[in-house]
């Protein structure tokens, strides 16, 4: 497949929401270094974990 031009219709829709060119961002905490991307993923995992515990689970039809 040939590379698409940057300005094809809907290009913005498929573009990364943040600029991925250049060095990544890191947080430093003593000897601990963590990329912001990984920190965001850990945060998302905590959110999904809490949601799994708190959201009601749908009951199947015909079950009490």
């Amino acid at each position: 497949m040939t590379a698409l031009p940057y300005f094809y219709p809907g290009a913005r829709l498929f573009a990364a929401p943040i600029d991925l060119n250049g060095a990544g961002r890191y947080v430093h905490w003593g000897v601990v270094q963590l990329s912001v991307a990984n920190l965001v993923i850990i945060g998302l995992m905590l959110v999904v974990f809490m949601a799994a515990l708190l959201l009601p689970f749908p009951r199947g039809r015909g079950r009490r």
Partner: protein
Amino acid sequence: MSGMGGAGGGWTGAVRRRVVRALPPEKLLPDTQPAYMASWIYVFGVLTVAALIVVLLTGGVLALKGPAWWHVSGAGKYVNGLHLWSVELFMFFMVIHLWGKFFMAAWRGRRALTWVTGAVCFFTSIGAAFTGYLVQQNFDSQWIAGQAKDGLNSVGIGAFFNVLDFGQMLMWHIVLLPLVLGLLAIWHILLVRWRGIVPPIDAATIDPADATTREAAR
């Protein structure tokens, strides 16, 4: 000489009787589960299985088509992307699954081996992911291999597990680790079927055989 239930029949008969006793069909493929399983947290085990299946299938396609395809063609890059992102989801779901099982102490009631096979799955997955990074064939993988060799040499295993040896790392990534992970996951799930889903912690003190105690506790 004997039917399905009796003794005899050599080792095949003995194995069959043991397997059927441990996992009769209604236990292997149940169509109902206890009411306490009606929570989203129980869905993360099967989400992990689903992601693992996509990982193995897309990895299989990459192996069939080869690097000249996945590095260059649009379809190849797409399948490469599916492989990466299904791994991301696999790890994501597996860690939430692990947290869930940790906080419900799901190793209770002779389920220790379920926990242990899960934990070994976790460590095997990390090995599979790291060897995956090593076989990307780009500057990233060269950098990682260059850094990792120092760490591994410092603990004395560089001679057996040489991260600079591309062929060896590829074999670990596409043969040994997926095979071990697949077998461990099957074993883990069969153990869950064998023991049944663990009861909630507050219900564990009640004797499940004694219905009157259970009623009285309501």
